[in-house]
């Protein structure tokens, strides 16, 4: 890969300052970024590692839900969120493989917004708030299409706040090679209604299946969405499955997630 300067600041302020430099890119675990750098698809001049910032690490249960530092590795979320938000913990425990979970972070995943990543579905279905060094962004406003987010230049995620639903589950159908989500569905039931977020399927990245939300808010049972369907148009079509197949999986997995949450 092309060479670069490497810094590992210990405070958010220092990280933000470093990222203000020309050609600077944030590294938050790097489990996706480093392979793309090996292919020279991403060629930063300066790499700013965020995983040395203590204030960006850890899982904390408090008023308003679960607060997760952006530099918290998946493995820590899998362990420390289990008591408070088991569906989120299970999702974190199913990302990649154990080594990926040791290094990869929630902030890195959400900032990258890979259309097949798991975390975006949890954030969107939970109605999470993405907290940055500048502001708080509602998940509904944050995800803006494949690899696109509301983050501006020099803006880094510092924390993610998850409201905790009454019932929730994530069901992921693996892409057989990469083991990213070929399709993954996160269902979260709150007092105010049900939210369904789907990753892996759409060309526009993670999305909410609003028809299913309406139906499930009225009747939280797999049968509630029996009559619904999604179109394969606009779904990702590749050698692992057509758009129609992914559209079909969205429904099957939503039903399974409802069953698992129940």
């Amino acid at each position, binding site marked *: 890969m*092309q*060479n670069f300067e490497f810094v590992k600041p210990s405070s958010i302020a220092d990280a933000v300052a470093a990222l203000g430099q020309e050609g600077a890119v944030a590294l938050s675990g790097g*489990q996706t970024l480093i392979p793309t750098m090996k*292919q020279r698809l991403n060629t930063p001049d300066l790499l700013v590692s965020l*995983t040395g910032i203590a204030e960006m690490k850890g899982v904390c249960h408090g008023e308003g839900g679960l607060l997760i530092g952006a530099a918290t590795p998946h*493995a820590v979320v899998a362990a420390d969120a289990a008591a408070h938000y088991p569906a989120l913990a299970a999702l974190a425990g199913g990302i990649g493989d*154990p*080594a*990926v979970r*040791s290094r990869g972070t929630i902030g890195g995943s959400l900032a990258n917004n890979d259309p097949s990543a798991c975390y975006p579905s949890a954030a969107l279905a939970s109605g999470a708030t993405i907290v940055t060094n500048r502001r708080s962004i509602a998940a509904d406003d944050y995800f803006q299409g494949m690899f696109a987010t509301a983050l501006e230049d020099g803006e880094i995620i510092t924390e993610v706040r998850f409201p905790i639903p009454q019932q929730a589950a994530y069901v992921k159908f693996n892409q057989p090679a990469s083991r990213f989500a070929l399709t993954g569905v996160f269902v979260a039931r709150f007092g105010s209604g049900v939210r369904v977020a789907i990753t892996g399927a759409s060309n526009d990245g993670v999305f909410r299946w609003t028809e299913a939300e309406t139906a499930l808010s009225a009747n939280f049972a797999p049968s509630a969405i029996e009559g619904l369907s999604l179109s394969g148009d606009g779904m990702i079509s590749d050698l692992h499955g057509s758009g129609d197949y992914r559209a079909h999986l969205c429904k099957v997995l939503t039903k399974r997630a409802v069953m698992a949450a129940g």
Partner: protein
Amino acid sequence: MAKVTMTVNGKTVSGEVEGRTLLSTFLRDGLGLTGTHVGCDTSQCGACTVHVDGKQVKGCTVFAMDVAGAEVRTIEGMANADGSLSRIQQAFQDHHGLQCGFCTPGMVMAAASLLAVNPKPSEAEVRHHLEGNICRCTGYHNIVKAVLAASGQDVSQIAAE
């Protein structure tokens, strides 16, 4: 180039690295610890698996500078103090858990990190934990058997026949 210092297999080591120097490159080329293998470039195969501060990581997907000051353990640091094979290593030999040997260091490191947190895993738990380590030779049968045996469980019922 910058100097990086870390502890590898209990010894403090330093070396000159670039920003782009991966931990696996530093171990292999900088320290001559060639037991850590590189089998892919997409962070999938796990042949490069090492422990950093007790956690299982892929050495090819971590920059050496990012783990400055860390405790790193590689396959070369897994044998008993007297040089004899550790319990996990011995189980791999006893149960033919390796053939060409290339994925083996990563498998042993992954197995060790599993047993550290889950001393008596089920077969399914072993298989799930090894999902980031690809072996092309064994079909995993004897690897899984070796890890179960290393955990002290009876594997006589998992005979090949």
